[in-house]
């Protein structure tokens, strides 16, 4: 009985690290996020399936003389986002090892790159909107819907980052470590989804 920890009471860096090390199973929060990711991944699958369903119901793609998407920038930006998995991973590792200060800096680095990514993507999105519109035809509709959905997921991730940076600046607790781990797997998912989305987006040019 006494050896079962009241893990939520861990508030100092050392205590949090000890809880993390003796854990035999993922915490409830991790399972919750894993299942949210499962349902969101299904959402992306449905959108990508819609893209290809529409594509194979049309002889011409893109429809109506819309120019094919340019390849370089979207791929570079996606690589940028995927690269932030590194600092996110290192932030979790540092927090688990009882170094919340280092965790904060790794997360801040990831946040800076992710925010830049979203800014650049919004700029591209606006640029595309100048060339064709979602109400032109089904190609435009699914193109902007798919990209917009992914950008919204990145924006949610940025909000989680901001909240975590604010919390971690006030020290680490078991609750905040779980929040950090959960945010990390969210970013891994958003990065994988980014690859799937960008390959779909660039499909006419590949």
């Amino acid at each position, binding site marked *: 009985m006494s050896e079962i920890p009241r893990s939520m009471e861990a508030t100092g860096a050392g205590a949090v690290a000890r809880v993390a090390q003796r854990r035999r199973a993922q915490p*409830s929060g991790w399972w919750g996020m894993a299942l949210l990711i499962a349902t969101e991944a299904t959402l992306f699958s449905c959108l990508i399936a819609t893209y290809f369903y529409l594509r194979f119901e*049309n002889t011409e793609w893109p429809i109506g003389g819309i120019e094919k998407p340019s390849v370089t920038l979207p791929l570079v930006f996606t690589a940028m986002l995927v690269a932030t998995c590194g600092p996110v991973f290192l932030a979790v590792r540092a927090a688990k090892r009882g170094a919340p200060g280092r965790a904060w800096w790794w997360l801040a680095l990831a946040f800076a790159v992710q925010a830049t990514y979203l800014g650049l993507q919004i700029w591209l999105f606006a640029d595309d909107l100048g060339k064709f519109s979602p109400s032109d035809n089904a190609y435009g509709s699914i193109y902007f819907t798919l990209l917009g959905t992914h950008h919204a997921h990145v924006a949610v991730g940025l909000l989680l980052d901001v909240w975590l940076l604010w919390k971690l600046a006030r020290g680490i607790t*078991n609750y905040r470590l779980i929040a950090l781990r959960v945010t990390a797997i969210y970013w891994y998912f958003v990065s994988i989804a980014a690859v799937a989305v960008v390959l779909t987006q660039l499909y006419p040019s590949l």
Partner: protein
Amino acid sequence: MAVAVPREGQRRTERLERIWKESSGLLGWLTTVDHKRIGILYFFTSLFFFAAGGVEALLIRTQLIAPNQSTLDPATFNEMMSTHGTTMIFFFVVPMSLGAFGNYLLPLMIGARDMAFPRLNALSYWIFLCAGTFLYVGVFTGNAPNAGWFNYVPLASRTYSPGPGIDFYALSLIFIGISTTAGAINAIVTILKLRAPGMSLNRMPLFCFAFLAVSFALVFALPALTTALVLLELQRMLGFHFYDVVFGGNTLLWQNLFWIFGHPEVYIIILPAFGIATSIIPTFVRRRMVAFPLVALAEILVAFLGFGVWAHHMFAVGLANSTAIYFAAASLVIVIPSGIQLFAWITTILTGTPRFQTPLLWIIGFIIVFILGGLSGITFAAIPFDQQLTDTYYVVAHFHYVIFGAAVFPLIGGIYYWFPKVSGRMYHEGWGKASFWFTFVGMNVTFFPMHILGLAGMPRRDYTYPPDMGWSALNLIETIGSYLLAVGLLSVFVNLAISLFRGERVGNDPWGGDTLEWSTSSPPPEYNYAVIPTVSSPYAMWDREDRERDAELLEQGRKTLEEGHETAASTAVDAEWDEVLDMPSHSPWPPLLALAMAGLFTFVLLERWIAAAIFIGVMLAVLAAWHGGEPQEA
């Protein structure tokens, strides 16, 4: 010493009582995170929607009582038919099973003190209430949806349905989808993480396996519906072209997305019924379920296979032959797990010593109508037969046998079965049996003739029919049956309402029940169990030594977790004790967040984008306040 020891246990339960006490009164119910209170809220709210859907059904049957009637005009008939289906499926069966039964019973059955995410649980309920209200604001302002519960395009596009009825439908379903997804995730994590230490997966009741399967199915099925609905609203409100053939869209895209969700949904509706059957049968025949591992696997397999059969709803739209044959074959495979469960139930009853009390009667009635509905289901896998009978009353007969008879009978049986646990009182047995016979006969009189009418060619969804078709007599019989059915269902709830105040008081375990919930008092205390229960089989109540051991542990103060709002968390498969969790207590944020979301959906409906954006800001502010405090600060 022998005198002092019982006092020790008494002192501990009083201490737990103080720690877990929620305030009574309206404020207590608004801010509650107690899974039992939330379950009760779900129960009454979904019961209200059941009544609304029932009234709509009676109006439909009254219109069809004789040829060329004008009780309802054609437009209202379409609205009643669409709202009936939408209400029953999304706002009655799923919230009743997952919300009311799942919430109330899952933590009790696994020996936990609450759901894994108590505040998210409250949020699910408040979103459900707001989404249902949202739909019915549409109905009462004359903007009911009118394109069927499946809402096919192009009928549902702005061109052919210019009013806001379809928007009420689409937005309310996106809205309640959030609630259902959150509820399903909560149920999965609760089942996987909060089982009493020692309850490894093979010692978990079959009821929990069924709810685990349902919850997983929801997590993977709902996104397809959400996608279909979001694309529809983008087309209706912003002029996108997903379903619009002229601009490269495709109408079958809607049907595919809808049924990728829609067929798993059918099993989502019926699997909780299977779970309830596997709880009631062992108690009333006094033996364990036959073929326990096979039944557990079959429950999961039904949910899994349900994802590969959607296009059997689309045999008449001109699929390629190879596609249609695959889907017909896949649909037939479902017979295997369904058959396993059916034979297991029947064998268990036949080899046990049945007591034919009300709950078991409902389960036997369920088995009979499930066999009939299952048999007519198999006929649809014969593609030419399906093409002949699609859009006739034969289909209506089939799906009311499975999703009314087979899915709802066990829910009612379950309501009778657990009524003493929830209320602490017993219902009236004679009236209970009478209500079963009224409903059973009424159900068959209403829906069986529909098979014949369908074979005779009567199309579904038409608001009336001419007198010279030879359909009049059977339609009259159906309508009489539907009134009988209404009387039966009413008598269920009148019986329970009177018993709530006048029923005989019962102890912990009036039935000799099989699962853990019968070991605690009726109604259970806020903390469920003073001692985290010891479990060594799925029929925990029948393991006498374990229950005696719980009493000893209480005296010794072991596994009582009385330092705060605490419960045990275990490893997912073997249920080894991993940590002690500090659970959140009452919170004002879930209902406020649901209200802010209702604001968002309302202004999206009105296409007032700035106001909608403001409500997103309000939602973020509520979320920030919600996550301001942490468990160790409480």
